[in-house]
Each structure stands twice: as structure tokens, then as C-alpha cells.
């Protein structure tokens, strides 16, 4: 299954398309947390403080552990309504 990584709005413009991190990538890069996913995707660039993170469609912070089958999303401040 792997871990699905999604980007929305201006984050997608910045980061490109959604990605699927397969089990091999997860193991090879020792990906355990949301922060680890971010670091893998941006090659170490710091995550802006206002970027929001969700795992399986619930808000979480960067230290949250991820597991096979999770959906992780990064997105800018919301502007609906």
C-alpha cells in the first residue's frame, strides 16, 4: 500500500503532484513521522510554520507517527467561506 502524500492549493504549485511512498521508500529513508515525510519530499527544506498537516483527514502535528496505508496531506492556511 504505502503512504499517500497530498498537496493542496499553493502547496501543490510548490511541491508538485501527489505522491505514493511505497514500503521500500519508507524503509529506505527511515520514515516514521509526518516530519520525516516532509523532509523526504523537500530534501530537508524547513516547513513554513503556517503549513497545515492532516493524517487520514484529521489535523495533526509533525511528530505524529505514520504507518502503511495512511494518507498524509500538506496545505496552506485555509481561505474558504
Amino acid at each position, binding site marked *: 500500500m504505502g503512504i499517500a502524500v497530498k498537496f*493542496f492549493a499553493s502547496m501543490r504549485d510548490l511541491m508538485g503532484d501527489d505522491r505514493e511512498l511505497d514500503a521500500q521508500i519508507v524503509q529506505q529513508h527511515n520514515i516514521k513521522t509526518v516530519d520525516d515525510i516532509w523532509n523526504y519530499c523537500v530534501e530537508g527544506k524547513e516547513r513554513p510554520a503556517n503549513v497545515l498537516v492532516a493524517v487520514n483527514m484529521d489535523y495533526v502535528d509533525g511528530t505524529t507517527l505514520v504507518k502503511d496505508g495512511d494518507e498524509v496531506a500538506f496545505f496552506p492556511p*485555509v481561505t474558504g467561506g
Partner: protein
Amino acid sequence: MSVVILPEAFNPWQLLEDYQQKISELNGKYGATAVFVGTMRDFNEGDNVSQMFLEYYPGMTEKHLEKICTQATADYGLLESLVVHRVGEINPNDPIVLVAVWTAHRKQAFEACREIMEDLKSRAPFWKKEQLNTGKNRWVEKNTKGY
């Protein structure tokens, strides 16, 4: 309780009339209805805006809005609540969001309606991209303060 994501234009007053008919078992029970409608303006931050694209996170957006309404129902004793939010291509003067709550007394209605809107504006996964009259596009970076 109803949460609706709509890809086409809607008439908030018609939806309210229809919804109130659907909840007719509450007739005589509610004394207060508070409603908020957000509408697309043709200007923002000093620029003329000709169109807007509203992106969302299918799945999470609905889940988050339902969570907001469930919380407000518990906090304010709502008898009913309705949240409708437009997505996709939007033109000036189109309604974007409708929030309505039904309660026994007005205090709870006013406070719940505002609370739902504030949570929606600050936490629900929606993003606006404005197309200016100049042809330029830009992501809206943040919402104005509500309190």
C-alpha cells in the same frame, strides 16, 4: 444536521425554505434561526476580481464540517444545522457559503452560527484562487479576522 459541498450555483433562500420543510417535525420547537451567507465580492485587497476557483479536500472537508456541526450541536443545544459550501468556478455575487442553525432561544442561535463560521473560515480545508481583471491569478493567502 446536513453538510453539503456543491459544485454549482445555489440560492440560499430557496435551500432554507426547502430545508425547513424537511425538518417540519421541529415546527413549534424552534424559536430562533440564525443564518449566515457569504457571497463573492467583485473586489478584494484593492483589486477587481472577475472569477474565483474554490479548491477543497474531498473527504476531509466534509468530515471537518460535520465535526464542527456536531461540536456546535453539543455546545449550544442546536435542534438542527445546515452548512452548504460551493466549490469550483465561482462568479461575483454567487453565494459561497450558507450556515444556518435552529434553536429554542436566540442567544444560542447567534453564537453557534458565528462559531461555526469562524471554525469553517479558519480550519475547514478550502482554498480560493482569484482571477483578477488584469488576467493574473493569485491564491488568497488568508481570511480576514472574524472577531
